[in-house]
């Protein structure tokens, strides 16, 4: 039996660079930063006072009453998913709900709802706690809302694997489509935890950049002066279809999702394995799954979060997997780290890189690390032919997810 091929037919996003895919991509190619100073009163006491906040607040898109029952991460996911659905030309296209699946995950979920409602509990007592609290904070909430609004009945799933979540969601959707359990899948990730507690937690781990006086220069993957990641928020969603389904309806195809792989390190709860065994295995397995040679990968959208250890470990892993001809970039230099949404937004960047033949730049790479042995698109976008590209995502917990997109 031949394998069912899977293609990308719709893209949607709301990010620190723009409220949709077009504005996000335009800003990426231009090398603009989405990071700014946190001006909220609560930020003053924190060691980290910068973040990449959504450029277009969900309140500008969704109505007030609807937002009362949505965690910010759910609102972002709905915005991204509706865009992707529209972009794919599926509004009123009569997709059979029983053949439509949703896989949308989040790294942290409705933590901000939990914290806000706890404030209400402490101040005003249990009767004042919103009846929407549980569906707002549950980590399957974003997937469930997307499924509900698009009418998905082939299953609604919410993988959680920290910063690998968005990519894992796409990998799981590929499996669902290949296995014949659905013809169309909306996959992606979402995150919105710009709040003092998660920031304090990450800051206590010494994982975040404290370049508070230079927000736009704070996220600097592969640069010698990198000092940690910058927290971002947003969501990305893509529409995946079996090639047969896409062809039958004459859909525009951005790229093929040729292969995917997920591995786990089994090394440490937060530290990446310095030997990179798990990441190398994921890269090799994804290439094998896609039937693409490592030397044919012309572009990598790296996970590279701007941390001392992680950025180089990824470069070493790519070398060991023999991905040596690729122009590498880290779009996190512009978006910040979207945690559970990162893999989804970066997949969109990878897909558009393949589609347009443009590698968005890694900004702030002024002084490359001496051990940086791959070609990184520093400062300026590169224009090149990209028949095949790779998107890496790794997460706390030792999750590694690697996706291979090829030109259709």
């Amino acid at each position: 039996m031949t394998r069912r091929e899977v293609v990308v037919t719709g893209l949607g996003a709301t990010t620190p660079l723009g409220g949709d895919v077009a504005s996000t991509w335009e800003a990426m190619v231009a090398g603009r930063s989405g990071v700014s100073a946190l001006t909220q009163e609560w930020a003053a006491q924190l060691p980290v006072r910068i973040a990449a906040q959504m450029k277009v607040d969900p309140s500008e898109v969704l109505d007030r009453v609807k937002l009362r029952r949505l965690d910010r991460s759910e609102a972002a996911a709905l915005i991204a998913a509706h865009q992707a659905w529209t972009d794919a030309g599926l509004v009123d296209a009569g997709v059979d709900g029983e053949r439509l699946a949703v896989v949308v995950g989040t790294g942290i979920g409705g933590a901000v709802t939990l914290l806000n409602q706890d404030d209400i509990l402490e101040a005003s007592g249990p009767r004042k706690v919103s009846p929407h609290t549980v569906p707002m904070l549950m980590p399957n909430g974003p997937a469930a809302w997307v499924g509900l609004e698009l009418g998905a009945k082939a299953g609604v799933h919410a993988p959680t694997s920290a910063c690998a979540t968005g990519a894992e969601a796409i990998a799981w959707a590929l499996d669902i489509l290949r296995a014949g359990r659905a013809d169309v899948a909306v996959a992606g990730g979402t995150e919105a935890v710009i709040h003092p507690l998660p920031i304090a937690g990450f800051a206590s781990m010494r994982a975040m950049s404290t370049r508070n006086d230079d927000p736009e220069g704070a996220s600097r993957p592969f640069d010698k002066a990198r000092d940690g990641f910058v927290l971002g928020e947003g969501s990305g969603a893509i529409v995946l279809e079996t090639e047969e389904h896409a062809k039958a309806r004459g859909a525009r195809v951005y790229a093929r999702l040729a292969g995917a792989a997920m591995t786990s390190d089994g090394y440490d709860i937060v530290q990446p394995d310095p030997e990179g065994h798990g990441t190398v295995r994921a890269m090799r397995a994804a290439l094998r799954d896609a039937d693409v040679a490592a030397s044919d990968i012309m572009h990598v959208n790296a996970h590279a979060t701007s941390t001392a250890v992680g950025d180089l470990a990824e470069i070493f892993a790519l070398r060991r997997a023999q991905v040596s001809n690729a122009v590498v970039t880290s779009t996190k230099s512009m978006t910040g780290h979207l945690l559970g949404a990162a893999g989804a937004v970066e997949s969109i960047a990878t897909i558009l890189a393949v589609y347009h033949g443009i590698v968005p730049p890694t900004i702030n790479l002024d002084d490359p690390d001496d051990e940086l042995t791959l070609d990184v698109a520093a400062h300026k976008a590169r224009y090149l032919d990209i028949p095949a590209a790779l998107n890496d995502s790794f997460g706390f917990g030792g999750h590694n997810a690697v996706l291979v997109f090829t030109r259709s």
Partner: protein
Amino acid sequence: MTTRDEITTGLAEILEEVAGVNPDDVAEEKSFTDDLDVDSLSMVEVVVAAEEKFGVKIPDDEVQNLKTVGDAVSYIEKASA
């Protein structure tokens, strides 16, 4: 002393805030669920907000008897008398 009209107006404000109901649609004969599209979770919000606004207690086992705006107005009127 609050009149029935004042209670209805107060409820309409709460319904607009909580569930996006157009105040012009709020009248005593209207059913919360069938006419005004207020679901069970929003109804909880309406009840809690009404308790605060009118200084009354509306026990949970009473809420199921409040089918229409008029039912709620009568209950609040009686409870605040």
